[in-house]
Each structure stands twice: as structure tokens, then as C-alpha cells.
């Protein structure tokens, strides 16, 4: 379970202090499919960054499975992220010099999988996201939707409990978006992986089973469907 307690994140912009996340208390149970929505600058991304351990909260706690990860050292946090959290980025952020399969294997390499395990799992994951025929293609040879599907497969490679996705469909057309959401929804149901999105996309909001609305860094609405 992901939990934030009185989570605050303040940025300095010149002499001004901007409260990106302001006293957020949020509990996300295992297996949820949650969308964090809100206007630009409402703190969606900062909330996800703090939950994912990429950003250090100004105050408050981030607790994942009873561990206060917000107090972890940098190295411990990197290991925690590697083994527990999968990330899906808006701009895919695949490594351009590696093939789709190698991009997926990269995470497993960091975890110390052997070659055979990596090989089998990367092929399984490519099958899972419908990219089995494009395993040898490099990102430049894939469409945006295909790249994002590889990015999802990469996020799954470490067998994470949680996947944090920031605007995963922002750069995709409707067909690719639908396909991606189908994949993520299926993984959520079959593998019980917790998904937490930040999004503006109504198509994502429609598919989410819980929608948390942020405004000025505060939760103003939390609807479970």
C-alpha cells in the first residue's frame, strides 16, 4: 500500500516559495487503478515524484508497505525503486541505442537476472504488450504508441508492485491510447499491479477506478467508482 502523510513539497522560484504539494494525505491500496487529475501546476507530477522517491518531500512522509521511504538514503532509494516501482514516462524515455528487447532487459540486468531469465521474461513482456514482432527494433523505428508499450514492458520488467505513470497517453493518438489502456488495465487485473497515473486525458480518467483531483497542491476530490 502507498500512503502519504501530511506530504508537502515546496519549490523556490526566485524569492517566491511555491507549494507544489500541500499537506496531502492519500492512501492507495494494492491493486488500485488510480488517476490523479487536475489542471497544470496542480501538483500531480510532484506528488508522483515524491511517491516514486525521485523527489524529496519538504515535510511529511511517504510510506510504502509500512516502510517510510521518504527517509531513505539516495542509494537505498535507488535500489528500492529498482525492485518495487515501475515508471512510465510521458516521453517514453527509451534508450535510443538499444533495441526494444534490450531496453526491457536493461532493468533486469540491473537486478542481476541471468541471460536465460532475461531472455524469457523480455519475450513474455513483449508478448504481453503486443510487441513480440518488434523486439529487435530500436526506438527510432517504432511509433509513439509502440514506444510507450515498450516503456510499459520495461516498467514491468522488474516485477514491481506499483507502476507510476506520468501523462502516459499525452503523446499518443486515440488508437494507441486505447491499446495502452487495455494493456495496463489487464495487467492491473491479472497481476494485481497497482497503477497510479497523473493525467489530463479523459480517456484515462474514464478507465480509472479511482480519480483523485488536485488543485494548488491539495486534494479537493477523491472519487472511487
Amino acid at each position, binding site marked *: 500500500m502507498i500512503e502519504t502523510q501530511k506530504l508537502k513539497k515546496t519549490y523556490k522560484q526566485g524569492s517566491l516559495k511555491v507549494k507544489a504539494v500541500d499537506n496531502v494525505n492519500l492512501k492507495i491500496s494494492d491493486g488500485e487503478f488510480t488517476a490523479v487529475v487536475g489542471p497544470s501546476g496542480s501538483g500531480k*507530477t510532484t506528488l*508522483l*515524484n515524491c511517491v*516514486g522517491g*525521485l*523527489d524529496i518531500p519538504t515535510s511529511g512522509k511517504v510510506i510504502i508497505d509500512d516502510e517510510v521511504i521518504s527517509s531513505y538514503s*539516495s*542509494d537505498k532509494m*535507488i*535500489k528500492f*525503486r*529498482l*525492485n518495487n516501482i*515501475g*515508471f512510465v*514516462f*510521458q*516521453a517514453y*524515455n527509451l*534508450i*535510443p*541505442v*538499444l533495441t526494444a528487447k534490450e531496453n526491457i532487459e*536493461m*532493468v533486469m*540486468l*540491473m*537486478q*542481476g537476472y541471468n541471460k536465460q531469465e532475461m531472455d524469457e521474461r523480455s519475450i513474455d513482456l513483449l508478448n504481453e504488450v503486443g510487441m513480440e514482432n518488434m523486439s529487435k527494433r530500436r526506438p527510432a523505428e517504432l511509433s509513439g504508441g509502440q514506444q510507450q508499450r515498450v516503456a510499459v514492458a*520495461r*516498467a514491468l520488467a*522488474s516485477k514491481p508492485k506499483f507502476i*507510476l*505513470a*506520468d*501523462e502516459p497517453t499525452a503523446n499518443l493518438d486515440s488508437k494507441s491510447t486505447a491499446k495502452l489502456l487495455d494493456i495496463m488495465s489487464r495487467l492491473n487485473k491479472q497481476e494485481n499491479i497497482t497503477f497510479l497515473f*497523473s493525467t489530463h486525458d479523459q480517456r484515462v480518467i474514464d478507465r480509472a477506478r479511482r480519480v483523485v483531483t488536485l488543485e494548488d497542491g491539495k486534494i479537493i476530490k477523491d472519487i472511487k467508482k
Partner: protein
Amino acid sequence: MNLITLIKIGWRNIWRNKKRSLVVILSIVLGLYGGLIIASLMITLNTQRMDTAINTYLADIQIHDKEYSKEYSLSDTISNIQYLEEKLKTDPRIKSYSKRAVINGMLSNSTGSYGVNVLGIDPESEIKVTNVYSKLIEGDYFESKRLNTMIVGEKLANKLNLKLRSKVVIAFQDVNGDITSLLFRVEGIFKSGNGMFDDYNVFVKNNSIFSNMPNLNSYHEIPILTTDENATQSLKFDLQKIDNSLEVKSWDEIAVELAYANKMLSSFLYIFMLIVLSGLSFGIINTMLMAILERKKEIGMLMSIGMTKIYIFLMICFETVFLSLVAIPFSLMITYFTVDYFSVSGIDLSVVGSGLENFGVGTILYLKLPIEYYLNLSLLVILISSISSIFPAIRALKINPVEATKSI
């Protein structure tokens, strides 16, 4: 994560911006090539200078009487020379030897006078030790039946306007301290490639000296050529044991300045290369910083998904080192072919010939470069690029994944 994957990523990364990587690679190729060629030129200059000295007059080892080097007195001749010669003839390490009577005197003709070192030699045995006979530009090498003939250097000949068959008088103090004059006729003019040697030394037959100086009973100098230069030190040691009244010196003890230059050269070359490559390292650092700036987002992503700092650091280091690893073989190859070509055809530097001759080198340089320089300078390039990689790698570690990816 294993190193092979990091190496693979690093290798592919350098080809992401081919043009930029090739510019850096080319600069390393040219820098290393330039450095190696300059090293080769310096080594060739020094080696040819040493070879000229050894082949013209020094030989590998020289034997004198112990007192000789103090005042270069005519009376300080080598004693027990027959016994010594027996030993020299039987030692397998000795290729050849000669015997010289050496006189310092004043050479005069109608044009003027000049201080010279007269080397009284046996032409037949001297041919086996030194190569002045092959450096004749005019006349013959003691083929005349006349006793009092002389071979002079071109530089001295020009100064005193000496031609073939010119008469000269050499005046010197004999063994008794009396001034003696001997008349010689120029039979040959040589040009050894060492202007200073040509200016100061003349060769005469030792019989012409002994016949005119009955009190001179032996030789002053025995130059020896060894079969193997590695045997020089052991031979010197063994010859010294024969007779304590002898002074046995290897060429580097006689021509100390040559030996010193030889020893200094290596250090100088490495310092020189270090300076050249340090300049290059700024280019490498700049390129890598650009590459990191371009890939800020990607590095941020790698940090986000769990790549540890040490792997990020190593990845950048590998990329930097790969740039030089690609460049080095090309540098070595073109250097090898250049040196190989000019080792046979030579580089004609007759434009600056007089300067080179004063330095003791001929006008044609036959390039050479010992294999250790290829190896050591390549290692130096790898070292410099490894050091150059540290700064960009540290910069990469400072990337904030949140800022780099803009979002998670």
C-alpha cells in the same frame, strides 16, 4: 548489471552523434600521430648523432692509459700492449679493434693555423672499427705509398683552403717536450656528418708518427667494436681486470653529453606528449559534456528506474575511453607506415644541413621509433582519456532525475 552491458551501451552511445565523435577521434588520431612522429624525429636525431659519433671515432669501448685522460700527454701510452692484444684477439665479444697514436697539435699552411687532434691510425684495422673511409668526398683513404699523407675533414679543409695534395705542417710538443714539426700531404677529404668532428680531427698513418718520433713507443688509444652492444658492459669490466694501469671506458662514459642526451630524451618525450595530450583532453571533456547535456533526459531516466551512480559513472567513462580506443589503432597504423617509409627513403633535411652537421647528425634522417613508444604513448592516451572522463562523469551524476525527465 554487468560490465558487458555497460560497455555495449557506451560503445553504441559514441556512435549516436557520428560527426561529433569522429571529430574527437580525428583530433586524437592527429594528436597521437603528431606526437609519435615528433618522438620518432627526436629519437632518430639522437640515435643518428650517437651512431655518427660511435661509427666515426668513439667505437663501443676505448682503452687508454690511466693517466692519459688527465693531461692527454704523449708519454701516457698503453703499456703491455702485446699482452693486451692477445686478449683482445681471443675474446669472442670483440668484433674488431684498432690502435691509435693521438697527438694534439697545430696544423698550418699558407692560409693559416688551426688546432687539431691528430689520430695516427693503421688504416687496415681502423676500417674495421670506424667508417671515416666511407665518408670520403674527395681523394683516397690512405692508398698512396707515401708515408706522410693525411685525411682531413671538409670543414677544416674549407677553413684552411686545403685541396688534395696540399701540403700542411703539424707542429706539436714531442715526448721530450721539444717542438716537433711534421710535413703531410692531403690525400683525402671526408665529411662524417658531424661538423665539429670534421673541424678538429685529422687522420694520418701511425707509421708516419712513429718513424718521426722514435721516443714514442706505444699507442694512446685502442677503440673496440663489440659483436653485441649488450656485451659492452661485461667486456669493459673484464678488460679492466687485465691491467690496473689501463682505463677502460664505454662510449657513454667518454661522450657523456651524448649519453646524457639519450637518457634525457625519453623523459622529455613523455613530458612533451603529456602536454600535447592534455590539450587534447579538453576537446574530449567538451565533447563528453555536450553528449551528457544532450542525453540529460535519458540519464535521468536511467537514474529513475534504478541505475546506480557507479554504473552511470562507468558508462560515461567507457564512452570517453572508447573514443580514444577507436583513435589509437588508426594513429599507430599511420605512424607505423610513415616511419616505415621514411626509415628506408629518409627525410632529406639538407636545407638545414649545416645546422644538423654542427649537431653531429647527417642531413638525411632515417626515421625509427622503438615499439615501446607505440605502446607507452597509447597507454598514455588511454590514461589521459580516462582522467578526462572523470569530470563529465561527475557532471552526469549531478543530474537531477526529476528535472532531467521533467516528469517521472
